[in-house]
C-alpha cells in the first residue's frame, strides 16, 4: 500500500511536467537546442575571411598564390605584414583569424631545392573557425601546387599549421561537458526548486504534510521524475557529442555515468536547499539563476579557462560544484583515465551533497515546528 501511495505521487509529478508546455520545452527541447547551438553556431561556412599575408619573398609565385587565395572567395587579404610580430597584433586587434607566412626566396627555392615550407597561423581561441580556415587555406595551397607543377616545377610545398592561444584545440571538447552541466543544473536544481516552491505557494504542500505521506516521501516523490529526466538528457547529450561532434568516449562508461549520476544528486540537493529558502516560485527561479547558472557558466571553467582567472576567482571556483564535475568528466571522457584519477573529485562532490542535504533537512524541520 505504501508503494502504491508513492507511485501515485510520482505519477502526479510526471503529469505536472507533461502538461506544462514551458516545463516541457525546458526539459526536452532545450538540451538538444543548446547542444546544436554550441556546436554549430561557430561552424557555419566562412566566406571572405580576413587574412594576414607575411610574404618574405614577394616574387611572382608568392604573388600568384596570394591572388589565388583572394580569388577563391574564402579569403581576403586584410594585412600585408612587414614583420612577424604584425601577425600577433593583427590577431589581437581582431583584424584577422588566420595568417600565411611565405618563406624568403620562395620561387628560387622551389626551382633549386624542390620544396618550400608555408606556415599557417590561426587564432584558435575560436577553435571551430580556426580549423575551418586552416583546411580552406590548405586546399587552396594544394591546388596552387598542382598549378605550378603544370608549369614544369616538380616540387612540393610543406604546410605547417600553428595554433595560437589554444594549442590543443580543447574548447571543442569543452562544450559537451559544459552543456551537460548547464542542462543538469537547469533541470535538476532549478526545476525541482521551482516545483517544490510551487506546491508551497499553492497550498498543496500543506495538504500533503497533513496527509499520511512522510516529508521524505514527498520530497523524494517530487524529485524522482527530474532525476530520470536529467539522466535521460545526459545520455542524449553524450550520444550527440559522440555521434554529431566526434567527442571521444575513452574512459569507462560505467564510471562516467556514475559521476553524472552523482552530479545529478548534487544538483538536486541544491534545488531542495533553494526550495527551503524561498517562499515563491519567482524567488526560487532567481536564486537558481544567480546562485547556480551564472557561477556555472562563468566560474566552472566551461567558457573561461580557470588558469586565466584572477587568483580570487580561482579560489572561488574551488567551491563551485560544476568545476569538479567538469574536471572529472574530462579526465574520464577525453583522457580516458580511471577511478584512480578522479577519486578526489568524487569525494568533493559527495561531501557537497552531504552538506547541502544536511542544511535542507535542518531548514525543513525548523519550518515545520
Amino acid at each position, binding site marked *: *500500500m505504501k508503494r*502504491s*501511495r508513492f507511485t*501515485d*505521487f510520482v505519477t*502526479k509529478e510526471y*503529469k*505536472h511536467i507533461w*502538461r*506544462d508546455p514551458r516545463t516541457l520545452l525546458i526539459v526536452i527541447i532545450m538540451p538538444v537546442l543548446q547542444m546544436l547551438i554550441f556546436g554549430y553556431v561557430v561552424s557555419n561556412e566562412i566566406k571572405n575571411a580576413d587574412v594576414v599575408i607575411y610574404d618574405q619573398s614577394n616574387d611572382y609565385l608568392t604573388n600568384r598564390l596570394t591572388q589565388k587565395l583572394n580569388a577563391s572567395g574564402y579569403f581576403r587579404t586584410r594585412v600585408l605584414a612587414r614583420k612577424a610580430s604584425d601577425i600577433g597584433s593583427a590577431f589581437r586587434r581582431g583584424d584577422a583569424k588566420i595568417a600565411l607566412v611565405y618563406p624568403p626566396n620562395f620561387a628560387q627555392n622551389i626551382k633549386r631545392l624542390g620544396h618550400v615550407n608555408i606556415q599557417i597561423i590561426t587564432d584558435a581561441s575560436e577553435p571551430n573557425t580556426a580549423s575551418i580556415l586552416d583546411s580552406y587555406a590548405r586546399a587552396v595551397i594544394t591546388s596552387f601546387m598542382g598549378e605550378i607543377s603544370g608549369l614544369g616545377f616538380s616540387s612540393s610545398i610543406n604546410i605547417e599549421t600553428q595554433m595560437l592561444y589554444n594549442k590543443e584545440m580543447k574548447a571543442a571538447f569543452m562544450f559537451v561537458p559544459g552543456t551537460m552541466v548547464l542542462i543538469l543544473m537547469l533541470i535538476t536544481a532549478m526545476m525541482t526548486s521551482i516545483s517544490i516552491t510551487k506546491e508551497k505557494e*499553492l*497550498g*498543496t504542500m*500543506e*495538504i*500533503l*504534510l*497533513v*496527509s*499520511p*505521506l512522510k516529508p521524505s516521501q514527498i520530497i523524494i516523490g517530487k524529485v524522482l521524475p527530474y532525476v530520470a529526466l536529467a539522466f535521460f538528457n545526459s545520455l542524449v547529450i553524450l550520444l550527440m557529442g559522440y555521434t554529431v561532434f566526434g567527442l571521444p568516449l575513452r574512459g569507462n562508461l560505467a564510471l562516467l555515468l556514475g559521476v553524472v549520476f552523482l552530479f545529478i544528486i548534487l544538483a538536486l540537493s541544491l534545488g531542495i536547499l533553494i526550495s527551503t529558502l524561498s517562499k515563491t516560485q519567482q524567488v526560487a527561479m532567481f536564486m537558481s539563476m544567480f546562485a547556480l547558472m551564472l557561477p556555472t557558466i562563468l566560474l566552472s571553467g566551461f567558457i573561461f579557462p580557470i588558469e586565466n582567472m584572477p587568483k580570487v576567482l580561482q579560489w572561488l571556483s574551488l567551491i563551485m560544484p560544476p568545476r569538479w564535475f567538469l574536471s572529472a568528466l574530462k579526465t574520464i571522457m577525453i583522457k580516458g583515465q580511471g577511478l584512480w584519477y578522479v577519486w578526489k573529485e568524487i569525494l568533493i562532490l559527495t561531501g557537497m551533497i552531504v552538506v547541502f542535504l544536511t542544511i535542507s533537512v535542518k531548514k525543513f524541520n525548523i519550518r*515545520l*515546528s
Partner: protein
Amino acid sequence: MKVASEVSGNNVIEVKDLVKRFGDFIADDKLTFTVGKGQIFGLLGANGAGKTTAIRMLCGLLKPTSGYIKVAGYDGFTQSDKIKENIGYMSQKFSLYEDLTVWENIRFFGGIYGLWGKQLRERSEELLQNLGMDQHRDTPIADLPLGWKQRLAFSVAQIHKPAVIFLDEPTGGVDPIARKHFWELISKAAYSGTTVVVTTHYMDEAEYCNQIVIMVDGKIVANNTPLELKKEYQAKTMNDVFLRLAQSASRTE
C-alpha cells in the same frame, strides 16, 4: 441543527491542559475541551490567539509541549501517523492541482490516503456522483468556478472517510450564496457522522456550529453552544459575543 448537549461518551477529540511553548512564548495555554462525534466545532479567535497552533497539534503536525491530546482515538504525542490517516484537511486556498483534471485530483488524493484498486475507483465514482460533477470529470481544475473548486476540495478531503475533518477558514473569498451552499455541505457531512472542526472569521457562520470555543491570547475564554453564549453575554449575534470577549486581547500577529 443538532445541539451540543447531545454530546455523549464517544468523543472524537479530547484535549486536556494542552500546552504548546515556543521558547518563552506560550502559544497555547492549558487548552481543555472535547468534541463529540458528528459535531460542528467552531474555533474562533483573533490573529495570534493560538488557533493555528491548536489546529496543527490536532492534525498531528506539531508535537505539544505538555498535556493530554487524543484525536480519533489516537495519542497526539506518540501516534501522529495514525492521526494523519484518520483526519481530513482543507485549507483556505482549497488547494487542488490546477493542471490535473477533476478525476485525477480525486484519484491522487485518494491514493495518498492509502486507497487503491477497486476501492479507490468506487469511492472516486461515488464522490463524483454526489458532487454532480460527473460531466466535468475530465475538466482541469483551472477551468472550474471557485465555488466548485471549494466543494470539490471539501469532498476530496473526505475521500478516505475520516473521523474528523479540519477546515481552516474554508469560505474565504467566496460569495455569500456559495458560502451558504457550502455550509449546507458541512451540515450534511456532520449529519452523516463526520466531526467537523472549523476556524472562521465570519461570525454569522459561527451560528451554524454546535459548539464554539473562543480563544484570546492563547487561552480558552468561552466554550459553549452559540445559543448559550448569546444568552450568557446578553448579545443578539455571535459577532457581539466575540467582540466583547476579544477586546481584552493583548497579542496580535
